[in-house]
């Protein structure tokens, strides 16, 4: 038991992803611990979203291994699973950089769809559902309760019956997180959750993510450009540039890492005097 406690929840080993001649991810290794927030940062095009796609079965990595230490199902090889199996069996659930809701369905329906597998089993491939058997009705009620609970936590309960596509962008982002939480994740992969949020919403998001990690022992893997989010809540940060990991460590270590500063600002030579005025770049970004 104690040995399993120390093992990371997710271990990425020597992951490579090539598209033709382009190497989007180059020999990336990373551990994600349960009960921690791990952030993946890096300039645009560093391969962060590609990394998520490899993790969640949307891309098949060219080489490397992604192992998940599942408390009930043992070790799972994510790189060999289909995207839906990553969510349903490995309980690794993601959100998308450009929000992907079911726009014509209501918020509540969005969250119920996320519980499809459980409901589908309970409806006995629709037979019990067609007959309206009590067992199915109970499961459906429970699913609604779960959805209501997630919506309440994300302050969305007033909009439960609104059509998802009609809501403002920031709210859609939160709905996507609420929906991901309905899948019952062990590891939640959030692709730029704070993009498009105002400062107040962003602060609320920080609180929520921390409560998820501390209260429920969830692991969170985060891609984010907003340094105020990253530096405040991450336990561990991994910096990517051109598909390579260039640094890894605590927020403090990362803020002072010369490699990272170089990646964000470019080479510190005469060509780049444009950037001279913003030398403490990460600090500046974190205030914006």
């Amino acid at each position, binding site marked *: 038991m104690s040995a399993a406690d120390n093992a990371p929840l997710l271990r990425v080993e020597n992951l490579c992803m090539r598209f033709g001649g382009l190497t989007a991810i180059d020999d990336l290794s990373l551990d994600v611990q349960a009960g921690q927030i791990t952030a993946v940062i890096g300039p645009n095009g560093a391969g962060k979203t590609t990394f998520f796609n490899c993790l*969640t*079965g*949307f891309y098949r990595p060219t080489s490397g291994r992604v192992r998940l230490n599942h408390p009930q199902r043992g070790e799972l090889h994510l790189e060999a699973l*289909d*995207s*839906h*199996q*990553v*969510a*349903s069996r490995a309980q690794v*659930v*993601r*959100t*998308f950089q450009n929000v*992907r*809701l*079911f*726009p*014509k*369905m*209501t918020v*509540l*329906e*969005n969250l*119920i*769809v*996320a519980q*499809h*597998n459980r*409901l*589908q089993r309970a*409806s006995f*491939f*629709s037979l019990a*559902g*067609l007959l309206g058997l009590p067992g199915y009705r109970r499961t459906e009620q429970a699913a*609604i309760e779960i959805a*209501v609970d997630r919506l309440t936590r994300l302050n969305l*309960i007033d909009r*439960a*019956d609104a059509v998802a596509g009609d809501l403002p962008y920031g709210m859609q982002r939160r709905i996507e997180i609420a*929906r*991901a939480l309905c*899948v019952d994740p062990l590891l939640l992969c959030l692709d730029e959750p704070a993009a498009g949020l105002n400062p107040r919403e962003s602060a609320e998001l920080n609180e929520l993510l921390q409560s998820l990690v501390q209260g429920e022992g969830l692991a969170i893997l985060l891609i984010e450009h907003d340094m105020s989010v990253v530096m405040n809540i991450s336990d561990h940060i991994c910096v990517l540039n051109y598909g390579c990991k260039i640094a890894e460590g605590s927020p403090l270590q990362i803020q002072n890492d010369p490699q990272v500063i170089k990646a964000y600002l470019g080479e510190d030579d005469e060509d780049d005097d444009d950037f001279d005025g913003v030398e403490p770049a990460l600090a500046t970004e974190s205030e914006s």
Partner: protein
Amino acid sequence: MVVLAHQAPSVAQRCKDAGAVAAIALLLGIPMLGLTTVDQGGSLLVATRWPTLAIFVALCFAGRLLARYAIDALQARARRRPAATLLRPGARHQLSLWLGWGCFGVALALPFVFSDNRYIVDTATTVLIYVMLGWGLNVVVGLAGLLDLGYVAFYAVGAYAYAVLSTQFGWGFWQALPVAGGLAASFGLLLGWPTLRLRGDYLAIVTLGFGEIVRIILVNWTALSGGPNGIASIPRPSFFGLPFKPGDDSATFAGFFGLDFSPLHRLIFLYYLILALAMLTNLFVSRLRRLPIGRAWEAMREDEIACKAMGMNVTNVKLSAFAIGAMLGGLAGVFFAARQGFISPESFTFNESAIILAIVVLGGMGSQLGVVLASLVLVLLPELGRDFAEYRMLLFGTAMILIMIWRPGGILSQRQPTLRHRAEAGAAP
């Protein structure tokens, strides 16, 4: 051509715009309307129809002019009153609910009102076949968002299954119905399993090819299907064992109920049979929509990738939509074969698929009532006269384009949520 916002174009600009349209119309019209070839004693001669062409071009000019005025006026009004809608969404739902029950009531009463009018009962039966087919295809196209251009293949499978089972193995209608439905569903799985991984437009053309394959096999596999001649003298369904034929003994329908024999009895029975099948389909589909599988169909239509990220096995969800749509088509096919008594590959061409698709599209994808209205229009239009019959598909093709441009969701597209957080008691039955 560019019309600046908020600034009405001058009359000269409008005329120029309409003139350009007329010029294009002229170019398009010359080879098709202006000129044609007629067969004269085995060889072709060119015939001209310049007056028709002139009328066509003039109509295009006037039409464009008027349409532009109308659109500008509508847009100006929309600017003045941004959120003016005719009905609240709730009220619209109420209205369509009432209309739906109204249609059902009329359908129930129809054979009594027109009990001596063979023609009306027969036409109404045809309408109901299309309604059922439309509701079946609606599962695939409207709910799951998969474009199936070979739906008629499943209709054919059902029809031929009943025809073969009844003529060669002596099966009855009620025995053959579930078997044929199951067979059609298996064909749906057979086609869906390899192809449903494909992108939407590939899927469309594969289903088109599949529909043709089934038809070609029916034409050529003479031993099974009778080839181009089809299968004749298919037994008609009986009233739970009582055949519709003359005779006073209690072994016939008329004799058992002490009625005078009338050929209309069978027609009316067939009418109620398809009404029952169609209403069962409706009930079945609207219930499925409120179940996990139905919500999964709709979610998949909205965003397949998000579905995968939620752990949904999209292939299975698609397959289920395909199989259920195919099964409903197959059931309608059984009824068709039983009603006609004769089937041949002629009845199962791509044109038939196109008609069913048109019904779904015009009715508003996903709308049950819309399918009924579209079927009514489609079947009744050609009955109004020969001209309408000739122009029917032309009008339908045009309408499909216009509706996609104007309201891609269909005319009656008001999606009702499958469940609500508040006021759950208010959910419609």
